[in-house]
């Protein structure tokens, strides 16, 4: 037995309009909807073996948004299977005219950052398999430059978001 979880499973967000947010995640990321309670909530997955990886719950149109400097979810991140898949999604973001906040090279991974309709940060990233990480501690301390791609012009355009 182990009290350590197997993995992160899902994130549950309060949003202004769960239906609108659901349509956005379906369109941009191609997520599957496993349960929908119109007007109230939606449960979506990228990995079909999870009942949901993101749940969104309606608060109403007047709900207050994120205030700078507060405790908050900064972003949620979806892992792409291959660097080519990340390129495909990047092209989709450009096609849908989703504004890219920044692109950051973390050494063993590369992340493309944008925002959902309520301003939640969303990252899509490719990460090297663990067997290819140069080190197993301080894993982000390695060399950069492993992931050239169509995003090179967007890299580090907003340093303030260059966290992880």
């Amino acid at each position, binding site marked *: *037995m182990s009290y350590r979880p197997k993995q992160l*499973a899902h994130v549950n*967000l309060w949003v202004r309009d769960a239906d609108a947010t659901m349509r956005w995640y379906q369109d941009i990321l191609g997520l599957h909807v496993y349960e929908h309670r119109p007007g109230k909530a939606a449960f979506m997955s990228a990995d079909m073996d999870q009942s949901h990886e993101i749940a969104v719950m309606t608060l109403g149109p007047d709900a207050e948004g994120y205030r700078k400097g507060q405790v908050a979810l*900064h972003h949620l991140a979806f*892992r792409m299977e291959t660097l080519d898949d990340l390129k495909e999604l990047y092209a989709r973001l450009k096609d849908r005219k989703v504004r890219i906040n920044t692109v950051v090279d973390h050494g063993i991974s590369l992340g493309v950052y944008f925002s959902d309709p309520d301003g939640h940060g969303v990252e899509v990233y490719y990460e090297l398999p663990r067997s290819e990480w140069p080190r197993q501690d301080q894993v982000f301390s390695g060399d950069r430059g492993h992931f050239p791609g169509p995003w090179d012009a967007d890299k580090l355009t907003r340093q303030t978001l260059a966290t992880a």
Partner: protein
Amino acid sequence: MTHRPKYLGHVNLYVRDSDASLRWYQDVLGLHLYHHRPGQAAFLSADLNQSHEVALMTVGADAPLQLKRQVGLNHIAFMMGSLDDLKDAYRRLKDRDIAIDHISDHGISLGIYFRDPDGNGVEVSYELPRDQWPRSDNVFAVEKGRFPGPWDQDAKRPAPVPAL
């Protein structure tokens, strides 16, 4: 190629004190620390094949907490490898005197909800494997009662909000 991500990889939280939160996530959930920037940030994983499943970033001791009915995080959830592991995690919460907000039976899963040091909602959950779900749409619209356990007394308290 596909634009659909493989899975949810991580969440990144802005917290008051990432060192204090780091110790809490290590102690309560047994997460592994893959990268630490003392005073600034910590990157933790349950699944060791991920460089991080939770990143914690310090915003400062005076940072306002998330308000009720504010757009943002409801909770993050970790999947346990077995129902026995969920029992182990439950006993650890009790042993650490961590207040349990509520326990919810979702039919195909059971979740235990509590809070991290900044009040961020955290769930530990056991979910049936997908091949055992009674249905593949509206997946939560099924009978409850599959997960008896040491939490049965706690489970009688109603959930304060929809909380999947």
